[in-house]
Each structure stands twice: as structure tokens, then as C-alpha cells.
């Protein structure tokens, strides 16, 4: 009984684990996909009452909470809340005024990937993006994340607190890089396609996801964390305020952090998950290890996305300016 409308990422509503859920609960699930974290707020702002659950990354949650787009989560209705990583449960992104607003779901890195047959020496550093030999062979995510990448190339490692000058420098770096860029990709599939059809050989990527899709097509790519480090992300489910389908929503949340949801999202997307307990139950040890579920240090080493607060405008404006050049 009831329906659930998800505004989420590709792969988060995969039939492999959604179908059983629908069968078990009678809630029908439909999903609309976003291409970037920046899509959540506008879709909710343009008119409420359309979606029930959203899954933004932790750096983009604050505005949704402030604007009242999402409701607090009643954690007592979640059976396995306590099994989630402590770091996530208490993260700034989903906690506000002593209330919890999100249910951590999956996490990962914004790694880079390349086609091994196009390189004699495998790239290790972001400098490869500027390699004149790669003219027209690079792709970059159409997201403010590009600023983070450029800042790190410039040596500005405090990427979430860049000064205006540093942002301007990043913008300039991106401008210089442009002759190498074939396309700014805006969806996972688009990037897959760019690699598959041989348009590009190097790009940033949602670690685990696109490489797996490419592997399915028999195309070999290699992911790597560049010397300049990589950003990390964590997505959590949030309940849109005023949803008429609250029951289904909570059933979905429970499913999401159980074995079904956690291993589902891990095997479909290749992402790491938020509930290590459930993960251990349903993953092979190899997968468990490969996804760094046993390695909190890896998680800590990533530059986990932070809410930019009032600086958000400066970042997005800089990125738009790059695209407009």
C-alpha cells in the first residue's frame, strides 16, 4: 500500500533489491535521477509534494534542512540505526538542533580512472589532466567538484575553505585545462559512454560505479586515487517533509540499511556502505575488503565533502564561469 517516489542517483533504485522490497511491502517505488548534488534543492524548491525520499550527499544536506524541505528522522523506528558507522551517524551533515535528518546509506571516493591501453606509464598525479598528449581525451564531471580538483592541482589542499584568490586560480587552471577536455559529463552513463565509444581516456569518476559498468561492456579501466588525494562522499536518505507515504518511507529506510539494501547498493554500484555489520553478513570477504569496509583509516584519508555554507555561491559561480568561457 502506498507509493514511494525517490529522487536519487542512478543505481540507488536498482530493481535487484527494489523489486523484492516492493513485493514484501506492497509499496511501489519509482525513481527520478539526478546528475549532481546541486539538483536536489531545485527539484524540491520548484514544488513540493512530489518526492518522498531523497538521497543527497552530506555536503548538500544543510540547505535542505534549513529550508524545511526534509523532516527529522525518528531513529527509534529504524531497527539497525546503531549498527551504522558512528562517524556518519553523528556527522554534521545529518544532524541539526539535536535531531537527525538523514539515514547514511553509502559512501565512496571521487577517484580518477583511465584506460590503461592509452598510457605507457600509468598516471599517478592530477598533472596528467594537463598533459598535452591528452588533448581532447579528458572528461571532467560537470559539478563544483571540478573546482576541488583544480584547487588540489594548484596545491591548495584545504579545498572546502578556498579564498577568493584560490578559487580564481582554480578557475584559471580549469581554463588552461580546457583544450584537453572533450566533454564535461553530467551523468554516470554519459561518462561510461564517453569511455566506451573511445572519446576519452581519463576522467574523474564515482569510484566503483562507472568502472564496473565499463567492465560489463568488456572495457578495461583502472581507478586510482591521485597523489593529490581525492574527495570522499557519503549519501544519506532523507524524508521529504509532508510526505503522505511515511510508512512506506520508513519501511524503505529499514530495508536500505539492512543486508538487502546495503549489499544491493554495493554490488550494483560498487560503493562502500554505511552499515558494516550488515555488510559483513552479506558480502564476500574479498568484496568487504575491496570496499574498505574494514578500513576506517581509508575513510578518514579522503577529503570528505563538506557543506560550503555561504561560500557555495562563490564555488558554483566559478564553475559556471569556466563553462561559459
Amino acid at each position, binding site marked *: 500500500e502506498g507509493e514511494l*517516489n525517490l*529522487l536519487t542517483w*542512478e543505481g540507488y533504485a536498482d530493481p535487484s533489491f527494489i523489486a523484492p522490497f516492493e513485493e514484501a511491502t506492497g509499496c511501489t517505488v519509482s525513481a527520478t535521477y539526478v546528475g549532481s548534488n546541486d539538483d536536489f534543492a531545485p527539484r524540491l524548491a*520548484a*514544488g513540493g509534494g*512530489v*518526492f518522498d525520499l531523497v538521497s543527497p550527499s552530506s555536503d548538500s544536506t544543510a540547505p535542505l534542512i534549513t529550508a524545511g524541505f526534509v523532516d527529522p528522522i525518528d531513529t527509534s523506528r529504524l531497527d539497525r540505526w546503531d549498527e551504522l558507522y558512528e562517524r556518519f551517524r553523528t556527522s554534521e551533515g545529518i544532524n541539526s538542533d539535536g535531531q537527525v535528518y538523514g539515514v547514511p546509506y553509502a559512501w565512496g571516493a571521487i577517484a580518477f580512472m583511465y584506460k590503461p591501453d592509452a598510457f605507457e606509464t600509468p598516471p599517478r598525479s592530477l598533472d596528467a589532466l594537463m598533459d598535452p598528449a591528452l588533448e581532447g581525451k579528458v572528461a571532467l564531471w560537470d559539478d563544483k567538484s571540478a573546482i576541488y580538483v583544480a584547487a588540489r592541482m594548484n596545491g591548495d589542499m584545504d579545498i572546502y575553505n578556498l579564498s577568493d584568490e584560490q578559487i580564481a586560480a582554480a578557475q584559471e587552471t580549469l581554463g588552461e585545462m580546457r583544450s584537453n577536455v572533450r566533454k564535461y559529463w553530467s551523468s554516470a*552513463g554519459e561518462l*561510461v559512454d564517453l569511455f566506451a565509444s573511445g572519446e576519452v581516456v581519463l576522467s574523474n569518476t564515482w569510484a566503483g560505479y562507472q568502472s564496473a559498468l565499463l567492465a560489463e561492456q568488456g572495457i578495461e579501466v583502472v581507478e586510482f586515487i591521485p597523489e593529490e588525494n581525492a574527495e570522499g562522499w557519503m549519501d544519506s536518505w532523507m524524508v521529504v517533509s509532508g510526505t503522505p507515504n511515511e510508512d512506506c518511507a520508513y519501511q524503505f529506510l529499514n530495508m536500505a540499511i539492512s543486508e538487502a539494501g546495503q549489499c544491493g547498493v554495493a554490488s550494483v554500484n560498487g560503493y562502500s556502505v554505511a552499515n558494516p555489520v550488515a555488510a559483513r553478513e552479506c558480502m564476500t570477504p574479498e568484496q568487504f575488503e575491496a570496499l574498505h569496509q574494514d578500513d576506517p583509516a581509508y575513510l578518514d584519508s579522503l577529503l570528505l565533502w563538506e557543506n560550503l555554507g555561504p561560500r557555495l555561491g562563490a564555488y558554483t559561480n566559478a564553475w559556471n564561469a569556466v563553462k561559459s568561457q
Partner: protein
Amino acid sequence: MTVVQEQVDIVPVRAKGRRRSRNGLGARLAWGGAIAAILAFLYLPIAVLVLFSFNSGRLLSWPIQGFTLDWYRKLASNEQLIEAAWNSLYVATCSTALTLIIGVPAALALDRLSFPGKGLFRKLVLLPIALPGIITGISMLTLFRLMGANLSLTTVIIGHATALLAVVVTQVYARLQRLPRSYEEASADLGASGLQTFFFVTLPNIRTAVIGSGLLSFTLSFDEIPVTFFLTGRDNTLPMYIWSTMRRGLTPEINAVGALIVLASAVLVVLSVLLLRDKPGGRA
């Protein structure tokens, strides 16, 4: 905005023959080649689309790898796509009905009545046809936001009806202008009331324009993106669905959808040519 009226008026045919040309074979060959090249430019892509919908390989490269109907089969089992198609059908049907209900009286008013503000009214109605859809889309988005209305297929329908109103109005208006006023006067003179006159005399005589503009606005609505882009809620229309899959990457399945759409369009074109060809009796 004559721009508009001319471009939607359907198929003028000139019957009178012209003088036989005195030029030789060379000129004819040159012309033939140029025209063939333009036609090739127009139809090669469509041919490619249809051809590759039967290609057994995933990669869209020459030569095609083999014949298959897989993509059509996949398409038949793609629920999202089918639902999107139904949504589109629903939207196109409703918005066409709306444009006709609003547009025919609007054309009548423009042609037969004079009232204060007519100039502005005409400009407003005709504007969307030259205006990029994005402006119609966002201006209506701001309105719905202000009204606190939720985005749904209904808002899309309203958006389409508004954007396509001009199509109906221009075509029906053009026809009304060719329809002598004296028909309606004769009808009133013979004792018919306003409604009787409209249904017995006016409507039968503008029938082809109404059907034609209805068909056109149906196709345009079925294919609409810019307005839908801003006004749709969670429901996808077919082009929006195709658009999102396209953005996610090349899938040969889309070729199959495309081939089907080409087929449907061909049917529609033939249909409209047949329907719109004035029967001799229908001519004024």
C-alpha cells in the same frame, strides 16, 4: 509576426505551369546534384537511425554487425519507457484538446470581433511560437511556484497548451480570414442562432485547419522538451525519458524508439496530407 503565419500555413501548391527552360543538360545536372545533396543531408540521419535499430552490435559504427530485433524486444519490456510513452500520449491529447478549446475561440475573436486590447492579446497569443520554449517554461514555473501548485503532468499540460496555442490560433485564424464573413452572415440572415451558425457553417468550413493544427500541436506536444523540462514533476514524458537516457549514454534501444517514432510520424504526415487536402466541395 508574419514569420509565424507563413511557416505554419500548410502546403501551397501552384498549379500553373511555367515556361519550358531553355537551359541545357549541364544546368539540370548541377541542380539535380545540389537538391539531391540537400535531401541526403535531411534524410541520411533518419535512415541511419532506422538502419541501426536493427544492428545486432552495441556499437554504432560502420558497417553494421548483423540483423536483430533485440532492441525492439527490450523496448517492449521497458516499463519506464512504456509509462513515459503513455504519459506523453496523455499530455499530448489533453493539451491538444485544450489548445483547440481555447485556440479556436481565440482565432474567432481575433478575426471576427474588435475589442479593446486586441493588439496586445494578439501579440501575447502569438508570442510563444517565436519565443524559445525555455522562456515559456520558466515563466510558468515561476507562476506555479507563486501559486504553490505542485508540478505534475497537469502543469505540463497547461504549459503545452499555452505554448502551442499560437499554432492553433495562427492556422485557424489564417483559414478564417480566407473564409468569407458572408457565410456566417448568410446563416444568421437565414435565422440561425450564433451556436447553430458556428456548428453548421463555421466549423465545417474551418475543419481542415482545426484538424491540421490539432495534429500539429499533438505532435509538437508529444515531442516537447523545453517547457516539460521545467514543469514536470516526477512523471516523465517520452522525450524527457529519451533525453535522460541519452544523457546517460548511447543505447541502441533509442534507435528502436526513434525508428518507431519515424514510422508514427510518417503515418501522421500522410494522414494530415490526406485530411488537409481540401475536398473540392470544401473550398470556399
